[in-house]
């Protein structure tokens, strides 16, 4: 390895990205349902307490079923409102029992077309008339917190204090093993050394960022306990296990990127798998 590369690596590893807490205002919330009149307002009533952690200025606007049915019209309607959040549930305008392994056409299109984040709750029949309590234990997950600090902003904003924020970073072990098997075929690279140093680098940089985020959040929100979960493993099963272990009330995930990889990579299967857990999809 050349000395130029050696020193570049050294200086790059000395860059410790710092999380700076920013406000994440949610004032206008558009609530979409496919429920008949009366049932939709009941759903709205169940939903309102969920936003108890937000400011009193937060306003929920219910969109009647007939205005959300046609997707084109719905998109135009959303664009005409300057909304901070869209709230709905899985399989909107879709028969849930027929397609349990999708989020439904409406939701999937909205996650990619709309700029506003989408909060997915459990379906009304799954809620069974119970009020949705404000989330106190919120988990944000990504494999690149440094690139997506807005996930932390949003997760923090949703917490009803005192509460807990869990920052989860899982490195995909299958991808890692695929690269390792390629490295194992390159004689000039020591495979054991590469395995040790690469996994250590991947995990320690995430741990370091989360540690600095803990300090930054606690300086502003002393009643929020920030915890980090950094590990290597199978993405879906590890995250599912973490959601259960931490008794999570709300999961915050990223769904918008230029190539829509987030939605099709991790977010979509998690949204389907954790069908009753409220999901904030940014």
């Amino acid at each position, binding site marked *: 390895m050349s*000395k*130029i590369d050696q*020193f570049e690596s*050294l*200086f790059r590893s*000395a*860059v410790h*990205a710092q999380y700076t807490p920013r406000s994440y205002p949610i004032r206008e919330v558009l609530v979409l349902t496919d429920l008949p009149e009366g049932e939709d307002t009941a759903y709205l009533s169940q939903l309102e307490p969920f936003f108890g952690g937000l400011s009193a200025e937060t306003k929920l606007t219910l969109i009647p079923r007939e205005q959300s049915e046609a997707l084109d019209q719905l998109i135009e309607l959303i664009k005409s409102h300057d909304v901070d959040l869209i709230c709905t549930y899985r399989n909107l305008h879709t028969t849930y029992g027929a397609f349990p392994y999708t989020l439904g056409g409406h939701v999937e299109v909205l996650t990619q077309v709309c700029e506003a984040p989408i909060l997915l709750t459990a379906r009304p029949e799954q809620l069974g008339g119970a009020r949705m309590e404000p989330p106190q234990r919120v988990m944000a997950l990504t494999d690149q917190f440094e690139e997506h600090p807005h996930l932390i902003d949003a997760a923090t904003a949703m917490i009803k204090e005192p509460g807990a924020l869990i920052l989860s970073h899982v490195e995909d072990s299958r991808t890692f093993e695929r690269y390792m098997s390629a490295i194992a075929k390159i004689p000039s690279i020591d495979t054991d050394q590469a395995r040790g140093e690469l996994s250590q680098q991947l995990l320690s940089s995430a741990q370091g960022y989360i540690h600095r985020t803990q300090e930054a959040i606690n300086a502003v929100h002393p009643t929020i306990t920030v915890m980090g979960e950094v590990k290597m493993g199978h993405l879906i099963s590890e995250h599912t296990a973490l959601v259960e272990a931490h008794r999570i009330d709300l999961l915050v995930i990223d769904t918008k990127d230029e190539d829509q990889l987030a939605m099709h990579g991790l977010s979509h299967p998690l949204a389907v798998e954790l069908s009753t857990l409220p999901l904030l999809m940014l």
Partner: protein
Amino acid sequence: MFTQDSLSLLVQSVAPSAHAHHAPSLGVTLLFSALLAGLILCLAFEEKIHAQKSLIAGLFAVVSLGLGVAFDLLPFGPDAASKGAAPLTNAFGEVLYHPVFVQGVDWGVIGIILGASLFVDVASGSGLFTWVALKLTKASGGDPVKLLWSYGLMTVVFSAVLNNVTAMIIIGSLTVVSLEKLGKRELLLGFLLTEGLLTNVGGLLTLISSVPNIIVGTAAGISFGSFFVTAAPFVVVTSAGTIWLGVRRFGIKGLESDSERAEGAALVAQFDERESITDPAFFKFSAVMLGLFILTIASASALPGVNKLGMAFVALSFASVMLIKFKSEVSKFYAGVDWDLLGFFMALFVVINVMEHAQVLSLIGEGLKHIIGLGEQVGGGLMLVAAGVFSSVTDNIPLAAMLAKILGAQGTSGDSSLWWSVIFGANLGGNLTPIGSASTLVAVTMMNKQGLKVGFGRFVGLALPFALFHIALAVIYVVLFL
């Protein structure tokens, strides 16, 4: 024009009698001159012929020695036991025989280079220099103008304390990373070029900052302190001028609004200088040892005992002490030594020694007399410019070694400004072309690695105003102040 007879007479007249074991004919001297020219040409086209310096010089040393023996130019012992060896009388009056190619090497210079590079390599491993670099990056607040001043001055100091190439690698790497972090990649060319040029300015600061300094300074008998006092004013003024010129030439602008300054400061605050320190105790030890090293080298000529053993002893001793920390893995550091450079020096000294016996240096020296004869001012200035131009196209080390030998043979006094003409010319000439010095070559390599596409012509175009400024300033300084 010289005629063959006049040249023969010239060679005979300038040949130092002590070295003339067998006075060569003009034809032999010219043959060896061609050999020396061949070596210089091969070094100039080192990249084109894909051969490293040590091998090039080594092959020329082999041929030179072979021809030296064939023409009976070299001093050998009188008996069978001393065949292939030259007599050497030690302090007890005993006559020792060492191979001629061993005696031709200036082991003092080799010792300084070996000891200093080992010392610097071990000290660098403590994170000392990267710690300083990151501290200064943060102190700049992310302002590009302040950053160029910080990096520029750091380049000068690191080039003086370490060596040009290591300084360029450290500061150049940090420049790439920090400008990326600040979102100012468009300034990369200006930064790397200014830093590359400053390595050769910083290389003038002390006696051990560059190889030409060591060779010429040692030959002239200039002490470390005296070298520093003489060179420092020039280095300070030239460094400041170069950075100022860099700021203007490359349109580097400071941060203007408070929000820009706050953002810049936040971005550079993400650098954690502690990251480079793996062992805090060794870090402190290295800092203390570096201070002591500079202090000891600076006072070597006044310290009893040390003044007899010389600077090579100091450098090797400090390297040995530093290596104690890594006593079970010292070979790791030996592997990091630039053996190509050391091999090159040794072979070069052998070639020059043979050239001395073949009266080639005397011949060149006689030619130089015409320049020197113009007086210390005009002659010195002319020699500086000539040395600069020569150094820009080929290695400055043979030039320095050759001119040092010639000036020494002509009995030039230690306080003559001619020595400084060689030192300034040999160092600053490297700024004219990308192949003029190893550190500018590293700078160009880094530019191209970053996709800036800087070839020979573009580099010359960009660097010429700076190089002319440096050489003009050096001529004024040498002519008026030395």
